[in-house]
């Protein structure tokens, strides 16, 4: 990235963008990088509710409403698992997300591999269906699945939720893997076969290791999408409660501070993954 390009840090002429640099007549003076301040301001906005959640996981509220700051306590961390139902919801969420990651990971990887490497009948149709599955509103996906389960007389619950989550995650994994497959050199696989490797050995020892970063990224994406999903899950989960569903259910009676603790722990997992990602990126360089 060359630094000598004179580009404005913000889109000029857009209302509400406070990032426009002032026009300076003296060129010698260093321009203030308003874009940096602006970006950090937006980031602060993105983190505002998280900061609230983390702070209030340490709050010691008097009543049931955890809105005003009353004092510092570690009480909620000590009995983070005091609510049996919350634990069950959390367990459901994590296990559904893991199953989704695994199943959509396998299906999506095979699909992405086929789309990236081969031409076959129905490829355009597959792309169309994947596009539709990604851009269809969640409320439509949930409603459509529930319609089918109703008409087929299937009781909704844990496994219908897994099925639904895998359905909307497959395309995301496939797209991630396809992007990687396109950049791979097919000669590496040919070389492996010249060296006497069978198709399966080639796949296991050559193709899969090269695809692994994309498979991992797609799988993590599926995990994140699944554990976060509320809308589709309400439609297809029946009596089974997941973490977002349980939070939703408690909003009317006052949310226990343990929810903020769980949210903070989830956020920490995200922070750790992000740090690992940065460290790995540094090492690759």
């Amino acid at each position, binding site marked *: 990235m060359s630094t000598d390009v004179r580009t404005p840090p913000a889109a000029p002429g857009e209302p509400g963008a406070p990032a426009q640099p002032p026009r300076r007549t003296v060129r010698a003076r260093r321009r203030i990088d308003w874009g940096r301040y602006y970006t950090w301001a937006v980031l602060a906005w993105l983190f505002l509710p998280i900061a609230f959640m983390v702070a209030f996981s340490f709050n010691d509220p008097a009543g049931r409403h955890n809105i005003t700051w009353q004092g510092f306590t570690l009480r909620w961390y000590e009995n983070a698992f005091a609510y049996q139902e919350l634990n069950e919801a959390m367990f459901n969420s994590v296990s559904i997300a893991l199953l989704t990651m695994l199943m959509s990971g396998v299906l999506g990887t095979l699909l992405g591999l086929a789309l990236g490497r081969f031409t*076959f009948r129905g490829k355009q149709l597959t792309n169309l269906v994947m596009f539709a599955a990604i851009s269809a509103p969640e409320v*439509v996906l949930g409603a459509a699945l529930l319609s089918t389960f109703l008409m087929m007389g299937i009781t909704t619950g844990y496994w219908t939720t897994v099925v639904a989550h895998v359905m909307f995650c497959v395309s995301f994994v496939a797209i991630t893997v396809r992007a990687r497959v396109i950049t791979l050199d097919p000669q590496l696989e040919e070389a492996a076969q010249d060296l006497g490797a069978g198709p399966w050995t080639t796949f296991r020892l050559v193709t899969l290791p090269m695809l692994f970063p994309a498979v991992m990224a797609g799988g993590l994406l599926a995990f994140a999408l699944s554990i976060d999903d509320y809308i589709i899950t309400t439609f297809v989960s029946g009596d089974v409660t997941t973490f977002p569903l349980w939070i939703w259910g408690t909003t009317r009676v006052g949310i226990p501070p343990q929810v903020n603790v769980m949210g903070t722990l989830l956020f920490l997992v995200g*922070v750790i993954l992000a740090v690992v990602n940065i460290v790995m990126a540094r090492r690759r360089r």
Partner: protein
Amino acid sequence: MNRKITPYALVLPAWAWLALFFVVPIGGMLSLSLTTGNVVTGFQQTFAVGNYVDAVSTYWEQILRSLFYGACATVLCIVIGYPMAYWIAFKGGPYKSTYLLLILLPFFVSFVLRTISWRFLLSDSGVVLGPLKSMGLLPEGFALLNSAPAVILGLAYNFLPFMILPIYAVLERMDPRMVEAAHDLYAGRAQAFVRVILPVSLPGVFAGVLMTFIPTSSDYVNASVLGGTHNTMIGNVIQTQYLINNNYPIASSITFVLMGLLLIGIFSYARALGTERVMEVHA
């Protein structure tokens, strides 16, 4: 394995899954929207379109409100997100991916939980309004919660990354020398932006609009948490009709009306923009 069979063997499991749990359900919902009856007496396939007439005449207000909220949130996302994507793409330097991770990090915390946090932040005695009120900076009776701006703000907040990422992706791939060339041809900063950078970034903006307008206008979580009872969206109606009233024929016809309107909106926007191949934005 034969090279001709291999691709089919690879796609078959995913095909089966998507056909069974995506294509068939959409068809099933279509047939359900053309039935009459209720849960007690059962639903009869009548192929009558009366449900659609009922759906539109009863819920046109929520439908229009949803499209309006979605459009407002989408515009807000462009206004907030474009300068940020721009700055990261051109000035982010070695920290580009770190900034992107920072944008995505809040999304590890549950969507519902973040939205509820906003409810507390925006409440009358909350962290934001409370101090302002006690300082007398706000008029008596000023409230943010349970208002349309609160819903739009929540929607823009929740879907902002879906706007930033595609715009960033096209700007990042752009050759900086194109901007230099514009300057060499005596284009000012504004002109270089309007004539060179903006046209290049339009596909990204389009992808962003696609990924924010569809989910925001069909969302109901923000409307329920931040909008109170007077700002319900069409998603609220679908959810209530499906899960509480068990009125499946009406519910599925409203769902199709919503989907149809979104498709019309997206395709007319694509035409206006000259982007004929809508699907390519995902590639």
